[in-house]
């Protein structure tokens, strides 16, 4: 690969990497939100029952 | 409109009188700017150009302004007077204009010492540089006053004010240094005028949103 091609590839990989990192962060966030929702549902049920 | 102008004049006069009596901010600004110029002398290796020295003058002005702006609303904050001002039956932009005039006055007073000191330490000044300083003072005071009011709501106000201020002041530095060193200072001075006009209008219009609860 010529030097030119390496740099072009690097630039496109940066973009791809950024999007993938973003997806990862959102996935982690969704996990946290699900966890919190489960906690709140449990609290609500306890309040209802107790 | 005489009511508006009278309100603005009253506020500006109050700030200047306060400073005259307490002498908190202005002496510190004066001392700071002369100290900064001294540091700059040692920061410039031998053989540095006159243009580099002029550039550093602008840095001194920007940071002295920051010093003064940090205290722009401190009196009101300590005495809880800002709420009183905001509740007063006047257009909130009056507060901004009054403060801006006060800050401009402080800057000009500091420069009355700084510019001769610079001419003494480094090299003589040109008329273009003085014109640029005058125009820059207006722009710096205008945005600085608004940003100081914004920073007042923050928990880290001494840190956040310089952070917000510096990117906004870059065009002023470009205009100022350009006017000081360029062959045709006209376009740079024109640019400074444009900056002042645009941001003064923006600050004047948006101040009320920044200061109401």
């Amino acid at each position: 690969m010529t030097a030119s091609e390496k740099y072009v590839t690097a630039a496109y990989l940066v973009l791809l990497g950024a999007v993938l990192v973003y997806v990862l962060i959102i996935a982690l966030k969704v996990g946290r939100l699900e966890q919190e929702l489960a906690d709140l549902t449990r609290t609500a049920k306890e309040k209802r029952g107790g | 409109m005489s009511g508006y102008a009278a309100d603005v004049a009253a506020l500006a006069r109050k700030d200047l009188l306060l400073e005259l009596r307490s002498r908190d901010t202005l002496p510190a600004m004066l001392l700071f700017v002369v100290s900064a110029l001294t540091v700059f002398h040692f920061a410039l290796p031998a053989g540095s150009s006159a243009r580099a020295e002029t550039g550093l003058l602008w840095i001194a002005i920007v940071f002295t302004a920051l010093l003064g702006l940090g205290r722009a609303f401190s009196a009101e904050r300590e005495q809880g007077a800002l709420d009183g001002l905001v509740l007063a039956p006047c257009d909130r932009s009056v507060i901004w204009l009054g403060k801006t005039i006060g800050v401009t006055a402080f800057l000009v007073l500091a420069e009355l010492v700084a510019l001769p000191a610079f001419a003494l330490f480094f090299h003589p000044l040109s008329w273009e540089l003085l014109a640029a300083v005058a125009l820059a003072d207006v722009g710096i005071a205008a945005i600085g006053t608004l940003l100081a009011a914004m920073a007042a709501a923050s928990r880290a106000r001494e840190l956040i004010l310089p952070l917000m201020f510096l990117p906004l002041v870059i065009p002023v530095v470009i205009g100022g240094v350009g006017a000081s060193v360029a062959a045709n200072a006209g376009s740079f001075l024109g640019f400074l005028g444009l900056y002042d006009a645009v941001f003064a209008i923006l600050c004047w219009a948006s101040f009320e949103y920044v200061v109401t609860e």
Partner: protein
Amino acid sequence: MSTWSRNRNGRAGKAGTTSDVGVASERLAAVLAAAATGLLIGGLALAFFWAPEDADQGFSQKIFYIHVPIALTAYACFAFGAWKAVRLLWTGERRYDLESYTAIHMGVIFGLLTLVTGSIWAKVSWGQWWTWGERQLVLFLILFLFYSSYFMLRYSTDPGPRRERNSAVYALFGVVLIPVSFLAVRIAGTILHPTIFTHTGANLPGTMLVSFCVCLAGMLALAATLYHVELAGKRIDASLRELRELLA
């Protein structure tokens, strides 16, 4: 830069007008994601297989097909954020704060990508990772610093109407700063830092222009998709916090 059109896929008036994130919002997210995928893949395919190689710059010119769309998308995000900020100040509706914040967050991410891809392009073109002569990069540096301070302002201010209004006014300042800085960097070039480097030639051949436009549309759609997703996440976060307070 003048090829930037305002035909953004569904960007105006999206992202849910009520607090219940419903079916319409889901479908919009799917449409945006599909559009982004199609346009971006298609655009890049055109750029690599159809558009010719640049006579002067050679293969390295291909970076242009993502660097400039990313830059224009960042501008679009900042403008969109400022628009939402105006709506907040105008109407006082609190949802505009989250929308403005998310848009500016997108803008900063794309701005950072602009700086990185621009730096790589500078390295391959002129051998330096950074040059003050490339006006676009310098402008983005100023804007990146400005909008990073936006986040500092938000994090250091307690949540409430005060923070919302301050953020909105600051976002407005940003969008005014864009043309002012552009002008400033331009006149600075005449005296302070000579602009000896330029990337974009005066005329783009038709094939390059079309490929570029498709890439641009794709990048805008990508930003819209990510914006939508992030906004939904933030809204759910806020609703859950509200729910927690109600249950406590």
